[in-house]
């Protein structure tokens, strides 16, 4: 956004004002996430900066909330549940979603629009409505308050993300590559593993990541259909915020921010790899 040479004085001033406004909006976007990181090292049980923290006194900082997290059986159990439910539902959603995406990207798929709308619907329907509906239905078939019930519910919620990312990858897939591989003498198995799979994998993996984060961050459905045994991290945080607000939550939040940074980096790397493999960008 260079200033053009013909810009008037007023435009130059406006340009810098505009950049200032954008900087403030970026601060609004990211600032809150960064503020909690130092707050989580607070030695005091408050949600704000203490006098000692501001003067950078080492006494003002401590790892006590992290210690509390790693020694609390409730939190550790919640983490374990989150991973069990998250991984199981991600596998289910990724397998079902990828197979379906293969069919959806076929040129002869009948009623594609309607089916696509149905497959995407768990993403559009407000979570509280899905949660209420699943609660009514799952209690009837004895799935409420079971791991299986929560996993099935989270699979349904993760499916749209897998379907969207994998169909997007497949739609940019150049089918002449398959023919080229055949003409060069590769048999179908070799073609699949050497040509198709490497090109499609980034899409499948990012779909799986979306599905996992959806499950890992999901509160409402778990709140309604899970029993005390299936308490996940978000539920633990939710009740922590509502009941006894302790900075342990900030420690958890900090770790989750770091986790999302990790996820974001992975996704970006996958995207670049996909582009490079498809020859969209040089090197």
């Amino acid at each position: 956004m260079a200033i053009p040479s013909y810009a008037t004085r007023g435009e130059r001033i406006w340009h810098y004002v505009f950049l200032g406004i954008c900087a403030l909006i970026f601060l609004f976007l990211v600032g809150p996430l960064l503020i909690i990181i130092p707050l989580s090292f607070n030695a005091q049980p408050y949600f704000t900066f203490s006098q000692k923290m501001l003067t950078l006194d080492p006494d003002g900082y401590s790892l006590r909330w992290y210690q509390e997290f790693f020694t609390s059986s409730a939190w550790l159990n919640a983490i374990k549940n989150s991973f069990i439910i998250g991984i199981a539902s991600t596998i289910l959603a990724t397998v079902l979603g990828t197979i379906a995406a293969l069919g959806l990207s076929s040129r002869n798929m009948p009623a594609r629009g309607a089916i696509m709308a149905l497959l995407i619907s768990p993403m559009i329907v407000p979570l509280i409505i899905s949660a209420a509906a699943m609660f009514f239905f799952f209690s009837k078939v004895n799935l409420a308050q079971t791991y299986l019930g929560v996993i099935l519910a989270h699979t349904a919620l993760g499916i749209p993300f897998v379907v969207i990312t994998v169909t997007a990858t497949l739609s940019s897939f150049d089918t002449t590559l398959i023919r080229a591989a055949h003409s060069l003498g590769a048999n179908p198995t070799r073609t699949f593993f050497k040509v198709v799979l490497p090109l499609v994998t980034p899409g499948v993996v990012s779909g799986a990541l979306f599905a996992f984060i959806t499950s890992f961050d999901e509160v409402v459905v778990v709140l309604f259909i899970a029993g005390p045994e299936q308490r996940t991290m978000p539920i633990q945080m939710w009740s922590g915020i509502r009941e006894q607000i302790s900075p342990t939550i900030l420690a958890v939040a900090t770790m989750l921010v770091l986790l999302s940074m990790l996820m974001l980096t992975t996704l970006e790397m996958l995207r670049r790899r996909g582009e490079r493999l498809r020859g969209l960008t040089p090197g």
Partner: protein
Amino acid sequence: MSESPSSPLTTADGVPLKVSLRRAVRRSKIKALLLVSPLLLFLIIAFVMPIFDMLWRSVDNPEVSTNLSRTVEALEGWEGDALPGEPAFAALVEDLQEGQQARNLGLLSSRLNYEKSGMRSTINRTARRVNALEPPYRDALIDINDTWGEIDTWKLIQREAAPLTMSYYLAAIDRQLTVDGEIVKVPDHLEIHVALFWRTFWMSAVITGLTLLLGYPIAFLLSNLPLRHSNLLMILVLLPFWTSLLVRTTTWIAILQSQGVLNDVMVAIGVIADEARWQMIHNKTGTIVAMTHILLPFMILPLYSVMKTIPPSYMRAARSLGGRPFLCFRRIYFPLTIPGIAAGGILVFILSIGYYITPALVGGQSGRFITNYIAYHMQTSLNWGLAAAIASILLFVVIIFYLVFNRLIGVDKVKLG
């Protein structure tokens, strides 16, 4: 086509080309459907059936017809101009005896209590003494509770014997049926749902407007920077997008609460007095600020993808033709971004009206959404029919906006990240 009827084009093995092609297409169709069917089946069982079950529950009315079947039968043909005769009372006693034995009168008494307050205790009190009753039952029942001597009670039982009811939907819009079948408003102090629906809509509109106001400059900046820089700044947009919803809500609690970071800063630099700290959370402000922050990426991303496609030469051309900067923006650039505004706006609005977590945590009393009442009726008042009816109305609104969105943009064009 030079296709002569005497010698149709055929494949190598003699099948007419048309037939062969049709076969191939059919095979490929079946293959595609087979690939999709496991997922389709899964979603129908795990998602679509629950939704339809909920819709059914919002009109289902089984309580009276199953628990008071004998009474309902005895009331058949009763005109409602005087109290029913002894057989109806006897049937009621029999029904209640059976219900008391099976201990399943709870749902019935709640159901009737929604229509006529006081019915819960009437039924419970009667059921407790029903085994000791002696005929004539008419006087005995009225002796236990005067309610049995009111024609309205019996009219109510007669009406609620119907298998379907509209009363949950009426309650969801603060209406009720009188005994004569007229639809009237509920008393003022019970009126909550309509006001909450409106509040949800206008606050969502405000949030959508704010995300547009904040998102537009950012999308503009990102789409006009060289790719190297914009990719870097894009991370700042995607990071909140990827961060847990609860984390983002928690940070706003830490920032906005009265002993929080923002108030502390304001007190420290002397803008406000220590005793006059701003109340920015557990009210409308809290909900609006936190939700604007949470939904902002959903506005920026569609705007960005539209702005990316606008060639910068358009603005230069407009300038070279003598347009002043603001005019050029208003007449050339802005109209080209309207598809992005529509996509982002509808997306944010749909997401916003269905939000539950954030309003529940930072909304307090005044910043609550209709979704919080769905949860309330599910978990606290246990009026599941009403919860289902409110959810169905909200679902209907969301589906309408979704169809508009699909028509305008196409859901398969949604990009993630």
